[in-house]
């Protein structure tokens, strides 16, 4: 027999039923777990772009496949979004009917039952009290034990443990709230890095992030305009090089420049203003190296933020020198001076004395030294952070070491200096100070996400630990007195229920005065 082609309606119903089934939910949960495993084993772009670049360089074919498949950004890939979406659709499909049923169950009074001896727990007693009186006593006993009770004449129905279902629903609905909080928060928010050297004022605006900014899809461009002035950056290290504290003292002012006070931003202690948060993220050194012509400074009068190369295996990052570049595009040919700053000059001197000695971590400023070298040729860009030497030639002899405050004749003793360059050029290592990297974030979803997390946890406890149970008591006139039939069952934690059942029976015996009892039957 061939089954008829399902109608459109039937197909939709089938899909809906499949989505609602626990099996689908379980499979989706496992798929989510598997996707996350991939995300933790393969380097991820948002977390470690350096590792991803390395991976792409090492594995050309595999890397291209991973890139196509979204495996280098699993948690932002279309299929991760798909699994999550399906899971949430399945969740809602399950929750809507369950929620309706629960509301109905809460409104509805406990339903009477017949044939109490068919229930797993059953007891028959003969008591002295009248049926009416006994039923009323049973109602009161169950009420006091926290049951919801309905009495019809001499029949009593009671149930308990709706909290289990309510808790479970709260737990599951909390995920919808969580998702909403994440989408709204990330979607309308932004996160970026602000780099300020000591004394610098920085304003929260797109241009000032220097490209280190991520904005949400629905972000309207409304930056806060907050003004931050870095008064002081301080860090403390142990002699082992282990950091103890990073601290930025910041004067805060609003868009109009009205002061809002001085704040200390430390790791674990961000500055908060509304839904904007400012975190201590990193630090570095900013050097002022002025190039002057005939005693007149032509470039480099502002501190420039220096960068470090990643430390090789086994070497402390604190032992690495700091680099920056002065570029003079106005010269013909163009000129670049690359700088290597050693905040603790002893580290460089130790290295010069014994190049094989282990590099020394530079934990504080002490007699800083700047090493410079002059290049000529076409410049690829004007950034102070990078120097593309592919098209450049170093000028032989135009290099040297400077202490803090020292001034050098830039081209003294150099050979092969282009004739078109001026002769009276000097360089001065004018200043060295620290800069602080602050992370600025706005996430309006945080309170919602926190609320969802609390709801989730609060719902989880009754969902796991409370149990649904039902009890009935019938009082019938008998030959020797009133026959009291007690029956009931629990859907979970049955051993617990057996004890509770015993206690209810004992209460009834005490209240109604027992004449005869049959032992409890449990199935």
């Amino acid at each position, binding site marked *: 027999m061939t089954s008829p082609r399902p109608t459109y309606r039937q197909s939709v119903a089938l899909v809906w039923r499949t989505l609602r089934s626990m099996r689908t939910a379980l499979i989706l949960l496992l798929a989510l777990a598997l996707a996350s*495993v991939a995300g933790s084993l393969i380097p991820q772009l948002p977390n470690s772009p350096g590792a991803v670049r390395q991976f792409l360089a090492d594995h050309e074919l595999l890397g291209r496949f991973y890139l196509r498949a979204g495996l280098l950004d699993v948690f932002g890939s279309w299929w991760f979004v798909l699994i999550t979406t399906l899971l949430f659709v399945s969740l809602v499909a399950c929750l809507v009917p369950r929620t309706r049923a629960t509301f109905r169950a809460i409104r509805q009074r406990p339903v009477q039952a017949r044939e109490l001896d068919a229930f797993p727990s059953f007891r028959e007693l003969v008591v002295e009290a009248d049926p009416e009186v006994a039923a009323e006593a049973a109602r009161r006993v169950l009420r006091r034990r926290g049951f919801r009770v309905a009495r019809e004449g001499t029949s009593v129905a009671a149930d308990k443990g709706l909290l289990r279902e309510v808790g479970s629903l709260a737990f599951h609905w909390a995920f919808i709230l969580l998702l909403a909080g994440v989408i709204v928060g990330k979607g309308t928010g932004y996160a970026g890095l602000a780099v300020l050297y000591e004394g610098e004022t920085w304003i929260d605006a797109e241009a000032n992030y220097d490209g280190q900014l991520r904005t949400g899809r629905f972000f309207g461009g409304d930056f806060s305009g907050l003004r931050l002035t870095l008064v002081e950056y301080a860090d403390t290290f142990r002699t082992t090089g282990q950091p103890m504290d990073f601290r930025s003292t910041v004067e805060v002012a609003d868009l109009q420049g009205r002061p809002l006070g001085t704040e200390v931003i430390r790791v*674990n202690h961000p500055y908060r203003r509304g839904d904007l948060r400012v975190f201590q993220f990193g630090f570095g050194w900013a050097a002022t190296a002025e190039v002057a012509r005939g005693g007149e400074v032509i470039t480099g009068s502002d501190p420039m933020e220096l960068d470090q190369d990643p430390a090789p295996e086994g070497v402390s990052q604190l032992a690495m020198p700091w680099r920056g570049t002065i570029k003079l595009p106005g010269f013909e040919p163009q000129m670049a001076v690359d700088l290597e700053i050693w905040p603790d000059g002893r580290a460089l001197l130790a290295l010069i004395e014994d190049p094989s000695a282990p590099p020394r971590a530079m934990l504080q400023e002490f007699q800083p030294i700047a090493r410079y070298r002059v290049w000529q040729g076409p410049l690829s860009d004007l950034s102070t952070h990078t120097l593309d030497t592919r098209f450049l030639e170093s000028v032989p002899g135009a290099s040297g070491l400077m202490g803090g405050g020292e001034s050098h004749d830039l081209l003294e003793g150099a050979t092969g200096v282009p004739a078109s360059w001026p002769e009276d050029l000097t360089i001065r290592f004018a200043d060295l100070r620290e800069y602080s990297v602050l992370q600025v974030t706005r996430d309006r979803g945080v309170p919602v996400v926190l609320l969802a997390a609390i709801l989730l946890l609060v719902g989880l406890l009754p969902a796991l630990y409370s149990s649904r149970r039902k009890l009935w008591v019938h009082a019938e006139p008998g030959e020797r007195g009133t026959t009291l039939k007690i029956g009931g069952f629990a859907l979970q934690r049955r051993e617990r229920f057996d004890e509770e059942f015993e206690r209810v029976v004992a209460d009834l015996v005490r209240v109604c005065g027992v004449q005869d009892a049959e032992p409890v039957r449990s199935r």
Partner: protein
Amino acid sequence: MSVTDWTRVANLSFDVALFSLIGAMVAGFAYLAFRRRALSTLSRAAGVLGAAACLVAIVGRGLAAGRTPWGNMYEYSLVMGFLVVVGHLVLVEGRAKVRTVAGFSYAFAVLTLAMATLFFDVGPAPLVPALNSYWRQIHVTAMISASSLLGLGCVLTMLYLVKERWEARELARLRAQHPLPIMGASTEVDAPPAYAGGADEPAAADPSALPPRGGLPAAATLDRLAYRFIAFGFPVWTFGVICGAIWAQDAWGRYWGWDPKETWSFITWVIFAGYLHARATSGWRGARAAAIALVGFVSLLVTYYAVNLWIAGLHSYST
């Protein structure tokens, strides 16, 4: 006492704890094999001694480092070993009155301590700034407690699977007999025997009810006990992850960033959530749900060990 004195006390106590627990483990297995009550008592006594020594080691470590002693993997493992033993003594032997599984619980604790001393042995040291937060105490305490509970639950799940297989085979064997044996209380395999004293221990008065030597508790008992541990550990794990997210919001500027440790704690959470759902789904109860719990156990171990040992991330505090 000075820092070095406390370090010495902590190290000595650690060794005492390790050897006591090895003793407790051996006695526990011996009890399972030979069913002499003295062996169970010995196992329990060694377990109590081991827990006490762990506690001394934890306190000594804290005094030596001048902070709460859960700042690196060595210390986490030490606290986890302690909690596993306490969990076994209080919940398995105390509340559930199951004594035959002691060897397995202690084996888990011994392995945890052995991992600490083999792979993560570092001296007491101060913390990096990101760890200096009261959230560390809450988050780490919750995560270690949850790991201990879930770990014990998974050890019991493994035993359940073994016993369940054995019971199924036994039942098939009985069914194949001619004539069919009468299924009495003593051979009832789908319900735990209502023994007096311990849930897995026969009443002394009735020697015919003696379970065979080497016999584990009934599969149903193991299953229920395993479920209780996991149902206890799961909300604690959830709480710990939430605390971690709250802390990350302050320390790293975001509550969730798919850092490997975060990702794996999520994977573990998802798997155990799957286990709890599977138990409520017909057709998935029993061995299938247990298999999910075992996958969860592997994930728990990866979250706990592998992420720190092999995957670089923000949680690499092991050395």
